[in-house]
């Protein structure tokens, strides 16, 4: 859905994170939600009400659509979370427990 302007030189330094177990290269300090927007299927979670897929919408912390599990903590806003090397991200389903699938 989105792509980097310059793939050959990713900003200040390339970091490696995993999304649902898959390694993904990311730009130091970019938001997790921005990485989700270029990683298929470009979604963040499923709604606790209907199970419908949701994706980042506002990118400024005001809509709470981009909720993902970050290093074991669930329902973190991906747009307000800068990536760090080794970060473990899981897309979340419905309304998860506070401690997520990867115990951090």
């Amino acid at each position: 859905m989105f792509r980097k302007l310059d793939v050959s030189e990713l900003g200040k330094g390339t970091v490696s994170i995993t999304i649902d177990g898959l390694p993904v290269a990311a730009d130091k300090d970019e938001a997790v939600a921005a990485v989700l927007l270029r990683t298929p299927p470009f979604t963040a979670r499923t709604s606790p009400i209907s199970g419908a897929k949701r994706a980042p919408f506002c990118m400024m912390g005001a809509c709470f659509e981009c909720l993902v599990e970050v290093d074991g903590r669930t329902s973190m806003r991906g747009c307000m979370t800068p990536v760090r090397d080794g970060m473990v991200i899981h897309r979340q389903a419905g309304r998860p427990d506070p401690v997520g699938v990867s115990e951090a």
Partner: protein
Amino acid sequence: MSAALELRAHGLSVTVADDQPAPGGRIFAGIESRDTHGPEDQGGAALVTRFRREGGEYLPATEAWGIEAAPRVFLTRNGTATLLEPRFVLLATGAQERPMPFPGWQLPGVMTVGAAQIVLKTAKQIPDRPVWLAGSGPLLLLYARQLIRAGGTVAGILDTTPPGRVGAAIGLIPGALHYGWRDLLRGLGWLAKMRGIKVIRDVRSLEARGNGALSTVRYATRDGASGEIETSLLLIHDGVVPAVHATMAAECRHRWNPAQRSFEPVLDEFRASSNPAIYVAGDAASIAGARAAIFSGRLAAIGIARAAGKLTTEQAYAAARPIRAKLASAAGFRVLIDTLYPPAELAIPDTTMVCRCEEITAGQVRAALKNRRQLGPDGVKMETRAGMGPCQGRQCGLSLTRLAAELHAMDPEDVGFLRIRSPLKPLTLGELASLETAS
């Protein structure tokens, strides 16, 4: 930033809590790690540099989740909560996109133009295929230009601007010209560059369709035409409104702005709210744009300096005079923009999911409101759960006010907004338990 610098210049100690990782707000987001384009960006970069050097104590990646009248400010940073009890609080919480609900807007593939702009500025990313924009307003045109300059493609624009605006605006141009002639010329330049883009005008309704993600957009125009567009990404925008959750949680008085169709805190001539210890600057006070925000911050700082006894009333008025002149210019330009681009107020069919978090439709809200004139947004919230989700009414609040006003034939000023309470941001019990008091 400008308020912090002004306050420091008057000898006051300042702490700035910023929910972003680096200074710059929205307009200059990520400016320390990207190229600057043009004089405004360069001015922003210079302001950030000065702020880093002389702007007081800076707390990045810090969320303010509670503001109480005393004033007391509750912050969370790195999983630890802190309570500050300053003499004065200045809220520069900025604006948010005006919610623009229509059937299917909750599908993956529908995002705001503001979101795409943040992604461009901070993650240096653009849509990987031609994109459709829908809505109205200068930000939409600005992003289209930025996207094209970055090598992206705009397939088309569904323009929801009501007809007849240019005629209404012509009379305002002389007053606005002095402040905004560069912007007007820039705008005309953009329009010339955008000749290859399909523009569908007078759109009055939208519908996003797809199976789990956006695949088509249906539209209808005011003169009865309709059509369907294939796209997997739709960027929407219908202006911006003040982000009022902090001022509302702090129990400041608000009023309805009928021209901008949003709530704003009631402020005095130095930007003090109905709570004399809480000041508001920038778009959080009233939408006036980035340049005005810099002056507005300085004005609020002068007001605080006067209230703190660092300036006499005479000195404060004298210092404020040139700033007020600039703000008056900005206000004139703002009236022109508001006349050219009033809020679109698309039709909200019953199937529209006005509350995205709890998945409540306009039909459910209307059913709750019907024949119950005493029911307002809070009553609707109790009945339907609209407004109870994690966004705390940021995406649905104005829609609830609008639906209640329409159904009850009441003024939005009388309908009011959802009652907003702390915590304003997610907070774990662990963070709350870690609360320390800073003196």
